């Protein structure tokens, strides 16, 4: 399969990364060589093989449904780019 410049721009948009035309060109060349490397996988017969998502077969632990965290809003918001009255500020989304 071959990756087009439009694919690169679409992926950048999905990943929320602004790219200039020049950056898209450079990324295209490098991603193409990386996907050539990845393409080696396609020749492997994996029929009947169970996908392995994790190194250990462990069961997700459950905990009691009780409050374990206390409110640290001021501490956490002290390192935020922009806050006001306990709220994180972002550009207006709803008119």
């Amino acid at each position, binding site marked *: 399969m071959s990756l087009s410049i439009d694919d690169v721009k679409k992926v950048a948009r*999905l990943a929320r990364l602004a790219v200039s035309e020049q950056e898209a060109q450079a990324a295209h060349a490098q991603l193409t060589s990386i996907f050539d490397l990845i393409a080696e*996988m396609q020749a492997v017969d994996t029929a009947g093989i169970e*996908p392995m998502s994790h190194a250990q077969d462990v069961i997700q*632990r459950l905990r009691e449904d009780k409050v374990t965290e206390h409110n640290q809003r001021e501490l956490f918001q002290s390192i935020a780019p922009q806050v006001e009255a306990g709220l994180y500020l972002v*550009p207006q989304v709803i008119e």
Partner: protein
Amino acid sequence: MHNSSLQQLSAALRSKKISSVELTQLYLDRIAALNPQLNAYITLNPETSLAQAREADARIATGNAEALTGIPIAQKDIFCAQGWRTTCGSKMLHNFVSPYDAHVISQFNNAGAINLGKTNMDEFAMGSSNETSHYGAVKNPWDTARVPGGSSGGTAAAVAARLCAAATGTDTGGSIRQPAALCGISGLKPTYGVCSRYGMIAFASSLDQAGPMGRCAEDLALLLNTMAGFDERDSTSLQRDKEDYARDLAKPLNGLRIGLPKEFFAEGLSSDVAQAVEAAIAEYKKLGATVVDISLPNTRLSIPVYYVLAPAEASSNLSRFDGVRYGYRAPDYGDLADMYEQTRAQGFGEEVKRRIMIGTYVLSHGYYDAYYLQAQKIRRLIAQDFTEAFKQCDVIMGPTSPSTAFKLGEKGDDPVQMYLSDIYTIAVNLAGLPGMSIPCGFGDNNMPVGLQIIGNYFDEARMLNAAHQYQLATDWHSRAPQA
């Protein structure tokens, strides 16, 4: 004093030959003198370190000292430490002062160790040369024209140049073992789940594992005793009984079966590395070990599999960096989407953006089965190779890296060449097995060579035993670069 082992330092502290404040100051002075050339540290807080040292001295005076009380330890800048700037090597976190401690950091704090500073690393641990750091490349202390390896390159350089007593690293595809090899130190990646990932900035969560880096195997055992342990805040932390990783250090190696995978000694391995590794195997035979030829047939596939799975997980993990709650925000933007796009385009470096794009692509509609699912299936084949191999041997040995440290800039423009240098380490992460690297000689240009030791699940004590016995018989681990 700066060449002493952790046990020697611990004994010197308890017998009041030196105070923790004096020892911490000694390392801070060495850092002030040598770090400008090496760039091994990103952040230092001498006042904070010395305040911890005063507390440690008080604790030692009361007789409540533990093995690491008063010992200055450098922390890879991937571990959140309360009150410390924690950058993960990225502009994205250039102003992030962590409001909390990673589990690994609190384990060291509880043990009374000193946080000496935060070490340089490839941005978000993505790299094998430490050249992707926003804070500049780290230089190899054996030859400052060469890379220290990565991503824990700052840690490896700091240990090798004796700018700390020991340090921490993390390993997603070889990031502890490869820099340990290239800088001539010892490093251990434990079995996946042994050390908590809580507060360790995530790259690829199914592969990331913290581990110790130090001068010798005995030091690693002491460090791992502190770092390991169950933590309910990491959903993949393993609930196991506490173990003493130093318990088998003194055991003789008679009857140890060493598996040598033929794929690790094939084309692509530099002859100087091959020579040093073969000499190390000969030394093991003298120590009573036997050698078995084995095969890990899917080794070559570990690279494509890794470069699908790790970027896929990274693209998800790094979506949290959006310029809203912490870290960098672009100065100029229009609407919300533009703020995200500008912030991420400016805050992330080239390699990180590349991997986010690979990950986004392989997870996108229409490609998931061909890439992500296929990679997960081959991951199982790779893990099964090891299961088969460990039926015939107790540990697997081979080179850590196909060559010694390469020159700065040599592989910078070609990501694929850089990726191929992780050929011997990646499969271990995919399987979730423990792996370590210890120095075993020098190759061309007098650069260090690392011997990799891979163990079965939870076999860290046996690997440390094998490494320690070798280090009793050889002195490669005690060689240090000229300062």
